[in-house]
Structure formats: C-alpha cells, structure tokens
C-alpha cells in the first residue's frame, strides 16, 4: 500500500501499522512522538491496532525548538 507520510509517499506492505511507518522513517527514538491519521490524533495505545489503508495521510510530529 502507498501512504502519504509527512507529505511524501511511502510504500509499505499491506497490513502494516504505525510502528512500521515510524521504523521506516529511521528515527532514533519514539519518545515525544505523536501521530495523526487523516486529521485525527491516534493515541499511542492504538498504534499497533489501527488498520492503515492505502491513501491514508499520516503526520508524524515531535517537539522542536520554537516559540
């Protein structure tokens, strides 16, 4: 399936979930991350179980300097 992750296309195997998306982003730690799928925040407790489908738009954010 093809997802749109942080504005870019990402190809993943069907049945993948949010942890596979994060692994593909090659981020050193998952601490302080938050994920929205199609404009809805997904609690960390649902990362493993939420069924991702082709075409879904994911935003994976973390805290940075600002303000």
């Amino acid at each position: 399936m093809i997802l749109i992750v942080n504005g870019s296309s990402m190809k993943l195997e069907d049945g993948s979930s949010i942890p596979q998306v994060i692994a593909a982003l090659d981020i050193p730690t998952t601490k302080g991350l938050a994920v929205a799928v199609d404009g809805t925040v997904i609690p960390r407790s649902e990362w493993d179980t939420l069924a991702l489908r082709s075409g879904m738009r994911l935003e994976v954010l973390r805290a940075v300097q600002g303000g």
Partner: protein
Amino acid sequence: MREKLQIGGRVFQSRLIFGTGGFTSLHVMELALRESGAEMATVAMRRVDPRAKGSILEVIESAGCDVLPNTAGCFTAADACLTAQLAREALQTEWIKLEVIGDDRSLLPDGPELLVAAEKLVDEGFIVLPYCNDDPILARRLEELGCAAVMPLGSPIGSGTGIRNPLNIAMILERAGVPVILDAGIGTASDATIAMELGCDGVLAASSISKAKDPVRMARSLRLAVESGRLAYEGGRIPRRLYADASSPNEGLAEFDIDAS
C-alpha cells in the same frame, strides 16, 4: 510574603517564560535556559526529521523546566486544535500556548479564529494560554472562555520593538482576572522591565535571548529585568510631574552674604 505567579493552579518562582526558538545550538540554548531561571520553556510541534541531532525535551528536562508546547504556524482554529491535541499526546501535558496567526508577514493573532480554538481546547480540558493582540476586549473574551492566562503581544513576534501600546496593556491589566503574560516584541532587558512595571504577571522572551550577540548573558539580563520590574511594581513608582519637586528641604537654607559681582 511576596505574591508568586500562579497559572492553572501551579505556582511559579520565576516570572520569565523561556522561548526556545532561534538558538543556533541546543548547547547554547541549555546554557541560556539555566541562566534565565525560567521554569517553563516553549516548544513547537513539527514533522520528524531523521537528521535532527539531540533532543530538546532532554535539554529542557535536565534544566529542571517544564515544557510548554505551542501551536506556532497555525492559521486556523482547526489546525491549532489538532496541533494542541498532538502536543498533548506527544508530551503528556494539558498545557498549550495557543497561537493562531493571521498572516505570515505580521504574525499577528487572528482574533476570531483564536476565540474558536480557545473555546474548543478549554472544553477539552486544556490549560490554555493564548497569544493575543493587545486588545482589552479580546483579552476579556478569552478570559471568559476559561483561558488560564492571556498573553498579549508588546509588538510583532521577533520585531524587538518592545511595547508599542503600553496603555492598552494597562487596560488589559486593569480588568484581567487571570495572569497577563507579555508575549512577543521584547528586544532587550528594559522592555521586560517596562512590562513588569506596568503590572504584567510575567514575560515570555524568545528571540530577544536566542538572537542576542551573547544569548547566555542576555538570558541573565532578562531574568534580572523581570525581577527588577516586578520589584518596582510592588514598590510603587512615584507620580509623573511636569515640574520639579525638590527632595531637599526648603527650610533652613543658609543665607550667604557674598557679593556676586
């Protein structure tokens, strides 16, 4: 006993809130943060960058500070609310510095969108600190919605032009029942002191520290400026007068019999 700053049921020893934007390195930011004495530091929420080095959260934590996420960069209430929800999920905090801006050039708050976002986030249990215009009516409306504080700007973000309309800040202060934190526009120490002398409950400083020639020294300067301004407010300034008012007694003046010629 001096009154402490209280926001959302929390008591702060410092009246300076530290904005983390604009530092050239996390190391300099950490030194400045420690020197500032602040107990709360802002962060923004952005897409993850695998190339990013270091963790701002670890730096803030190690300095003994709490994190205050913001919604910087949001132009609509919907975007701001989603960003706040993401921040809550990522950082496990109900606190949010709510920013909804109207355009890129001025970065001035969009009042109507701000009110919509504030109402929704308060309903969702957030402790909302809205960055707002120096508009007494907007500030009152935000307070009525249940915001924990109001954060009027002194002047546009990063402009460093201080408080352009101190009389409006005074009007906000006169009616406010929640803390008033002067946000945006601080250029140097004296701007922060003026804010505190007006009666503001606190000051948020970001660019004035991060973009200073020596951010660590400027952080200390702002710490002292905020403390000094608060002391002056509590001490009570003398009234302004058009003419002089001698402080030495007029009685008992000597009469010198000297020939001026």
